[in-house]
Protein backbone atom coordinates (compact mmCIF):
# COMPACT_ATOMS: atom_id res chain seq x y z
CA UNK A 1 0.00 0.00 0.00
CA UNK A 2 1.45 3.36 -1.00
CA UNK A 3 1.91 5.82 1.82
CA UNK A 4 1.18 9.51 2.11
CA UNK A 5 3.10 11.45 -0.54
CA UNK A 6 4.36 15.00 -0.11
CA UNK A 7 6.26 17.38 -2.32
CA UNK A 8 8.59 19.11 -2.38
CA UNK A 9 10.74 17.54 0.32
CA UNK A 10 12.75 20.72 0.86
CA UNK A 11 12.10 24.37 0.08
CA UNK A 12 14.13 27.49 0.74
CA UNK A 13 12.55 30.90 0.20
CA UNK A 14 13.04 34.46 1.32
CA UNK A 15 10.63 36.18 3.66
CA UNK A 16 7.59 37.74 2.02
CA UNK A 17 7.70 35.17 -0.78
CA UNK A 18 4.94 32.63 -1.35
CA UNK A 19 5.21 28.85 -1.16
CA UNK A 20 2.91 25.89 -1.69
CA UNK A 21 3.08 22.31 -0.50
CA UNK A 22 1.28 19.35 -1.95
CA UNK A 23 -0.02 16.20 -0.29
CA UNK A 24 -1.56 13.04 -1.70
CA UNK A 25 -3.09 10.86 1.04
CA UNK A 26 -3.39 7.10 1.13
CA UNK A 27 -5.99 5.97 -1.38
CA UNK A 28 -9.46 5.88 0.12
CA UNK A 29 -8.62 7.90 3.21
CA UNK A 30 -11.35 10.45 3.80
CA UNK A 31 -9.60 12.56 6.39
CA UNK A 32 -6.50 14.65 5.73
CA UNK A 33 -4.45 16.70 8.17
CA UNK A 34 -1.74 19.33 7.87
CA UNK A 35 0.66 19.75 10.79
CA UNK A 36 3.44 22.25 11.43
CA UNK A 37 6.48 20.98 13.32
CA UNK A 38 8.90 23.67 14.46
CA UNK A 39 12.37 22.50 15.45
CA UNK A 40 12.35 21.21 19.03
CA UNK A 41 8.58 20.96 19.21
CA UNK A 42 5.96 18.35 18.48
CA UNK A 43 3.66 18.53 15.46
CA UNK A 44 0.85 21.06 15.76
CA UNK A 45 -2.37 20.59 13.82
CA UNK A 46 -3.04 23.40 11.34
CA UNK A 47 -6.09 22.12 9.51
CA UNK A 48 -8.19 18.97 9.17
CA UNK A 49 -10.33 18.01 6.17
CA UNK A 50 -13.08 15.44 5.91
CA UNK A 51 -13.38 14.74 2.18
CA UNK A 52 -13.37 18.27 0.72
CA UNK A 53 -14.77 20.03 3.78
CA UNK A 54 -12.86 21.71 6.59
CA UNK A 55 -13.43 20.07 9.98
CA UNK A 56 -11.03 22.08 12.12
CA UNK A 57 -8.87 25.07 11.15
CA UNK A 58 -8.79 26.76 14.54
CA UNK A 59 -4.97 26.85 14.64
CA UNK A 60 -4.40 27.94 11.05
CA UNK A 61 -3.04 31.52 10.77
CA UNK A 62 -5.61 32.52 8.21
CA UNK A 63 -4.03 35.87 7.41
CA UNK A 64 -1.21 34.09 5.60
CA UNK A 65 -1.98 30.38 5.44
CA UNK A 66 -4.58 28.73 3.24
CA UNK A 67 -5.37 25.15 2.35
CA UNK A 68 -7.71 23.38 0.02
CA UNK A 69 -8.79 19.88 -0.89
CA UNK A 70 -11.08 20.62 -3.78
CA UNK A 71 -11.84 17.11 -4.98
CA UNK A 72 -11.55 15.42 -1.64
CA UNK A 73 -8.31 13.67 -2.54
CA UNK A 74 -5.03 15.59 -2.69
CA UNK A 75 -4.48 18.86 -0.89
CA UNK A 76 -2.40 22.02 -1.14
CA UNK A 77 -1.18 24.19 1.73
CA UNK A 78 -0.05 27.71 0.85
CA UNK A 79 1.79 30.41 2.77
CA UNK A 80 1.61 33.95 1.44
CA UNK A 81 3.64 35.91 2.45
CA UNK A 82 6.08 33.78 4.42
CA UNK A 83 7.71 34.96 7.63
CA UNK A 84 10.91 33.81 9.29
CA UNK A 85 8.91 32.02 11.99
CA UNK A 86 7.25 29.82 9.36
CA UNK A 87 10.48 27.83 9.07
CA UNK A 88 9.39 24.32 10.03
CA UNK A 89 8.58 20.87 8.71
CA UNK A 90 5.07 20.66 7.29
CA UNK A 91 3.58 17.21 7.74
CA UNK A 92 0.60 15.76 6.00
CA UNK A 93 -1.32 12.82 7.45
CA UNK A 94 -4.41 10.87 6.50
CA UNK A 95 -6.80 8.49 8.20
CA UNK A 96 -9.63 6.34 6.86
CA UNK A 97 -12.47 8.44 8.25
CA UNK A 98 -13.31 10.94 10.91
CA UNK A 99 -14.08 9.70 14.37
CA UNK A 100 -17.70 9.09 15.27
CA UNK A 101 -19.77 11.98 16.50
CA UNK A 102 -19.03 11.23 20.11
CA UNK A 103 -15.33 10.87 19.41
CA UNK A 104 -15.19 7.32 20.68
CA UNK A 105 -13.79 5.88 17.50
CA UNK A 106 -10.29 6.93 16.65
CA UNK A 107 -8.66 6.18 13.34
CA UNK A 108 -4.89 5.93 13.16
CA UNK A 109 -3.21 8.75 11.31
CA UNK A 110 -0.54 7.86 8.76
CA UNK A 111 2.11 10.49 8.19
CA UNK A 112 4.00 11.54 5.10
CA UNK A 113 7.73 12.38 4.98
CA UNK A 114 7.12 16.10 5.39
CA UNK A 115 8.35 19.23 3.62
CA UNK A 116 11.16 21.11 5.31
CA UNK A 117 10.69 24.85 4.76
CA UNK A 118 13.46 27.35 5.44
CA UNK A 119 12.57 31.03 5.29
CA UNK A 120 15.58 33.34 5.00
Amino acid sequence: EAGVAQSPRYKIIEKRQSVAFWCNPISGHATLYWYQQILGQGPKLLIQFQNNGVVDDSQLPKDRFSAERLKGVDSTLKIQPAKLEDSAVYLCASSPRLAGGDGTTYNEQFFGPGTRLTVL
Partner: protein
Amino acid sequence: AQSVSQHNHHVILSEAASLELGCNYSYGGTVNLFWYVQYPGQHLQLLLKYFSGDPLVKGIKGFEAEFIKSKFSFNLRKPSVQWSDTAEYFCAVNAVGGLLTGGGNKLTFGTGTQLKVEL
Protein backbone atom coordinates in the same frame (compact mmCIF):
# COMPACT_ATOMS: atom_id res chain seq x y z
CA ALA B 1 -7.99 22.10 25.53
CA GLN B 2 -5.61 19.26 26.18
CA SER B 3 -1.83 19.53 26.49
CA VAL B 4 0.99 17.00 26.70
CA SER B 5 4.30 17.24 28.57
CA GLN B 6 7.40 15.19 27.93
CA HIS B 7 9.97 16.00 30.55
CA ASN B 8 13.00 14.30 29.04
CA HIS B 9 14.15 16.12 25.93
CA HIS B 10 17.34 14.16 25.36
CA VAL B 11 18.18 10.71 26.68
CA ILE B 12 21.41 8.81 26.09
CA LEU B 13 21.60 5.13 27.01
CA SER B 14 23.93 2.25 26.43
CA GLU B 15 22.69 -0.85 24.67
CA ALA B 16 20.81 -3.25 26.97
CA ALA B 17 19.91 -0.49 29.39
CA SER B 18 16.29 -0.08 30.41
CA LEU B 19 14.26 2.83 29.09
CA GLU B 20 11.45 4.84 30.57
CA LEU B 21 10.20 8.03 28.92
CA GLY B 22 7.75 10.18 30.80
CA CYS B 23 4.52 11.59 29.39
CA ASN B 24 1.87 13.56 31.24
CA TYR B 25 -1.26 15.10 29.82
CA SER B 26 -3.77 17.62 31.05
CA TYR B 27 -7.38 16.95 30.21
CA GLY B 28 -10.18 16.17 32.59
CA GLY B 29 -12.14 13.85 30.36
CA THR B 30 -11.60 10.56 28.59
CA VAL B 31 -8.56 10.31 26.37
CA ASN B 32 -6.95 8.06 23.83
CA LEU B 33 -3.16 7.96 24.22
CA PHE B 34 -0.39 7.26 21.74
CA TRP B 35 3.33 7.00 21.33
CA TYR B 36 4.77 7.80 17.91
CA VAL B 37 8.36 7.24 16.84
CA GLN B 38 10.43 8.90 14.14
CA TYR B 39 13.60 7.06 13.16
CA PRO B 40 16.32 9.11 11.45
CA GLY B 41 15.23 10.00 7.93
CA GLN B 42 11.88 8.24 8.25
CA HIS B 43 8.22 9.16 8.73
CA LEU B 44 6.40 9.43 12.02
CA GLN B 45 4.90 6.04 12.78
CA LEU B 46 2.67 4.66 15.48
CA LEU B 47 4.47 2.73 18.21
CA LEU B 48 1.50 1.89 20.44
CA LYS B 49 -1.89 3.18 21.55
CA TYR B 50 -4.30 3.04 24.45
CA PHE B 51 -8.06 3.37 24.05
CA SER B 52 -9.56 1.47 26.97
CA GLY B 53 -9.24 -1.74 28.98
CA ASP B 54 -5.92 -3.05 30.24
CA PRO B 55 -3.83 0.01 31.12
CA LEU B 56 -0.63 -1.80 30.16
CA VAL B 57 -0.36 -1.79 26.38
CA LYS B 58 2.25 -3.46 24.25
CA GLY B 59 3.50 -2.12 20.95
CA ILE B 60 5.98 -2.98 18.29
CA LYS B 61 9.64 -3.78 18.88
CA GLY B 62 9.22 -4.71 22.54
CA PHE B 63 7.90 -1.35 23.71
CA GLU B 64 5.13 -1.03 26.24
CA ALA B 65 3.35 1.82 28.00
CA GLU B 66 1.26 2.08 31.14
CA PHE B 67 -1.70 4.39 31.53
CA ILE B 68 -2.10 5.64 35.11
CA LYS B 69 -5.28 7.65 35.16
CA SER B 70 -4.75 9.10 38.62
CA LYS B 71 -1.41 10.52 37.54
CA PHE B 72 -2.51 11.58 34.03
CA SER B 73 0.52 9.67 32.78
CA PHE B 74 1.35 7.34 29.92
CA ASN B 75 5.02 6.43 30.27
CA LEU B 76 6.85 4.44 27.63
CA ARG B 77 9.13 1.58 28.65
CA LYS B 78 11.47 -0.96 27.16
CA PRO B 79 13.46 -3.42 29.28
CA SER B 80 16.52 -3.51 27.05
CA VAL B 81 17.19 -0.95 24.32
CA GLN B 82 19.07 -1.56 21.11
CA TRP B 83 21.15 0.76 18.96
CA SER B 84 18.33 0.65 16.39
CA ASP B 85 15.97 2.30 18.90
CA THR B 86 17.79 5.59 18.36
CA ALA B 87 14.97 7.92 17.33
CA GLU B 88 12.70 10.70 18.45
CA TYR B 89 9.66 9.64 20.47
CA PHE B 90 6.45 11.63 20.71
CA CYS B 91 3.58 11.18 23.12
CA ALA B 92 0.17 12.29 21.83
CA VAL B 93 -3.35 12.55 23.20
CA ASN B 94 -6.76 12.55 21.56
CA ALA B 95 -9.54 13.94 23.72
CA VAL B 96 -12.65 11.80 23.43
CA GLY B 97 -15.83 13.77 23.09
CA GLY B 98 -16.16 14.96 19.55
CA LEU B 99 -15.35 18.20 17.88
CA LEU B 100 -17.22 20.39 20.35
CA THR B 101 -14.65 19.56 23.00
CA GLY B 102 -11.72 19.63 20.63
CA GLY B 103 -11.75 15.86 20.28
CA GLY B 104 -12.80 14.12 17.13
CA ASN B 105 -9.62 12.84 15.59
CA LYS B 106 -7.39 15.71 16.71
CA LEU B 107 -4.01 14.73 18.11
CA THR B 108 -2.07 16.95 20.50
CA PHE B 109 1.62 16.06 20.61
CA GLY B 110 4.27 16.55 23.25
CA THR B 111 7.59 18.19 22.39
CA GLY B 112 9.33 14.86 21.86
CA THR B 113 12.26 13.01 23.41
CA GLN B 114 15.40 12.41 21.42
CA LEU B 115 16.81 9.00 22.37
CA LYS B 116 20.34 8.03 21.48
CA VAL B 117 21.49 4.49 22.16
CA GLU B 118 25.23 3.98 22.21
CA LEU B 119 26.98 0.72 21.43
